């Protein structure tokens, strides 16, 4: 066994690092570094740069225009992006619906949608959760009734991330209310411009407009926009969720957050000494360091298994649980490190374009991010759900 990257992999890392240093616009880097929300245009500018480089669709095979990277390259790329304060690629198109279209979509759907994702022409959002169906996703009630060449869709979706910018929605709908829970679901691609769609913002506890409610009121969707067979939606949904959980440990982000925390805590003074010398604080940083070391090796184990032909299975649940816990702890420690400086809340600066003096700007996002990071143990299947998945699939309880 060895834990070292090959010379080729190290050269790849250097190449990614050089690219990020040259190509990432300074204003975007600064917005990410300060924890400010990105505008739609910021996302698009960066994703167009990645697209031109051929690196937008990191997970895609070359036949569809991906760079042909393996799991190791993807891991290195993610890690370097986080370290460079590059925006996370909006995943709903390129990382979520695209693999479903590749696996279950018709040739026409593939030819139409995949190039548009690759060129950032379409902005996708996700219609999964409903007010009555969160972790129990299969309990969804949005109805689609066939009427000739169309489905008439009625219902409500929620937690639709960045839906305010999207022009396309992939959506789980119930096409057969009489079939058993999972069997009556279909997977539809819906144009957000369709009459009957209303998007309403949900403001989260950090003041951000990141998620939305989407109301569907007699929305007409052409039958050709169904992916896979009618009633096969749950298969697509499960397939998509395994992709959603890949890389969900957010290790690159955790590493960056720990680096930032250590640097902060050695500059901030507590009674004339660096905060990092305060034993109770230092111990928590040390424990976070250990957890990160363990998580990194576990992540490499999963990556190596995937590279050697295994499928990411329940280990991704493990990574999700421990990774989210670690990132939450790091956001807590960062907030504590700043102390009183973490108290002021500047929503117009964080979520808009309002200016702010430099001293406040440097610490403005800490509390908002701490509250925002609570989502990590809730989304993508709450950590309790993950534990039940491990209990069922690995431990067969």
């Amino acid at each position, binding site marked *: 066994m060895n834990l070292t990257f090959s010379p080729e992999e190290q050269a790849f890392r250097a190449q990614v690092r050089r690219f990020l240093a040259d190509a990432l616009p300074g204003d975007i880097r600064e917005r990410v570094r300060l924890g400010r929300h990105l505008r739609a245009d910021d996302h698009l500018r960066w994703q167009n740069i990645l697209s031109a480089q051929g690196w937008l669709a990191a997970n895609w095979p070359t036949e569809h225009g991906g760079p042909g990277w393996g799991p190791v390259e993807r891991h290195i790329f993610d890690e370097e992006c986080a370290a460079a304060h590059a925006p996370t690629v909006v995943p709903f198109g390129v990382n979520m619906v695209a693999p479903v279209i590749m696996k279950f979509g018709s040739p026409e759907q593939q030819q139409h949608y995949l190039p548009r994702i690759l060129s950032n022409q379409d902005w996708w959002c996700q219609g999964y959760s409903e007010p009555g169906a969160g972790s129990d996703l299969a309990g969804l009630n949005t109805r689609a009734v066939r009427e000739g060449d169309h489905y008439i869709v009625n219902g409500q979706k929620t937690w639709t991330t960045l839906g305010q910018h999207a022009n396309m929605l992939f959506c789980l709908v119930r096409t057969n209310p009489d079939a058993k829970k999972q069997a009556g679901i279909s997977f539809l691609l819906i144009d957000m411009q369709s009459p009957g769609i209303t998007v309403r913002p949900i403001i989260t506890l950090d003041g951000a407009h990141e998620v939305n409610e989407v109301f569907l009121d007699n929305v007409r969707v052409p039958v050709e926009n169904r992916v896979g067979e009618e009633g096969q939606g749950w298969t697509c949904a499960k397939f998509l969720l395994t992709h959603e959980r890949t890389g969900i440990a957010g290790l690159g982000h955790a590493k960056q957050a720990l680096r930032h925390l250590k640097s902060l805590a050695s500059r901030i003074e507590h009674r004339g000494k660096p905060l990092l010398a305060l034993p109770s604080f230092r111990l928590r940083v040390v424990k976070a360091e250990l957890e990160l070391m363990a998580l*990194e090796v576990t992540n490499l184990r999963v990556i190596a*298994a995937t590279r050697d032909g295994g499928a990411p299975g329940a280990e991704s649940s493990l990574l999700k649980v421990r990774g989210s816990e670690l990132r939450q702890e790091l956001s807590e420690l960062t907030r504590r490190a700043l102390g009183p400086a973490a108290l002021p809340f500047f929503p117009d600066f964080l979520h808009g374009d309002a200016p702010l003096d430099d001293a406040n700007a440097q610490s403005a996002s800490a509390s908002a991010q701490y509250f925002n990071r609570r989502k990590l143990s809730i989304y993508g299947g709450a950590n309790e759900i993950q534990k*039940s998945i491990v209990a069922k699939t690995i431990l067969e309880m």
Partner: protein
Amino acid sequence: MDFALTDEQRMLEETLTRLVADQVSPTQRRAMLDAPRQAPSTLWRTFAELGLLHMPFSEAVGGLGGDGTDLMIIMQALGRGLVPEAYVAGLVLPGQLLALTANSVQQTRWLAPLLEGEHQLALAWQEHGARYDAFAVSTQAIKHNVQWRLTGRKDVVLNLEAAAAYLVTARLESGKLGLFILPAGTPGLSLHLYRTMDDQAAGDLTLDDVTLPDENCLSEDVSEALIDVLALGRAALCADAIGAMEEACDQTLAYLKDRKQFGLPLATFQALQHRMVDMHLHLEQSRSMAILACTSLSLPADERDYKIAAAKAYCGESARFIAEQAIQLHGGMGMTEECHVAHYAKHLVMFDHYLGDSDYHLETVSDQLSVA
């Protein structure tokens, strides 16, 4: 980056797992623990025949030149079976110190028979009141012409009873740390034998003006070699603990599936499922740390010691967690001598203490924490 085992390593793992399953059932283990300790056991002789005793030593001293992964495979299998043989205390620690310090005459006398399974040794590095600090040594060695005279006391020496000789650290007049080999029965030595909390044979060793010829001095400056050997021992112990954690988890899971309360198997209760998953998460994260430790042995000393301290601290806490949960989930049964998992629990708690507990190693990580 590669986590796969070679064909030879897979064979080693299979052979050893089979051997342990055949020869170390709970009843056989009890009998081995109760047997007289002086002569090497049948199992130890089998280890010798299989080359397991040669594995962790370099070819230069007659070993097989196994690496950290080989050591990990061996230790994990031994930990899984809770094998009552002093592989670390009686072979790896003293043997590696001999390999690093002994001259060829001393190696022929002490190391060669060790690798052949003809005798075992013990390392006396710990002193009363010094907790886990291997350098807080007050045992003294003073040289008179061609002889050394040693006085002091060493605590909790594992494998003391079975050892043919003891490797003893002592402070020299130069202020440096010396290393001596004392054959069992040397006049001036007295042994206070006992068992540790997990039934391992151990004892205190008192040296009352022990006289030794110069040929029994292995080193007049053993610090660096001692640091190397303790690092090796800690990595090996982490792997041993992984084996024991695996088995404690497996036995607990089997019990939850088997035992019924309120008309249902315990495994159907979500509170218990999630506890079981937490044990599993601790195990898998610790396995990663043990891999980190065992693949760090060839790194420069600073980097190696940082990673191994991190691993020992992490695995120590997980071991205690898994031990406590295993007892809790077995309910009243887990409290009994008869319940096999209780012995794993004791071994896992012992592991945390042995060669420095998690507080000791957390301090090392804390002292060397990089801020860059």
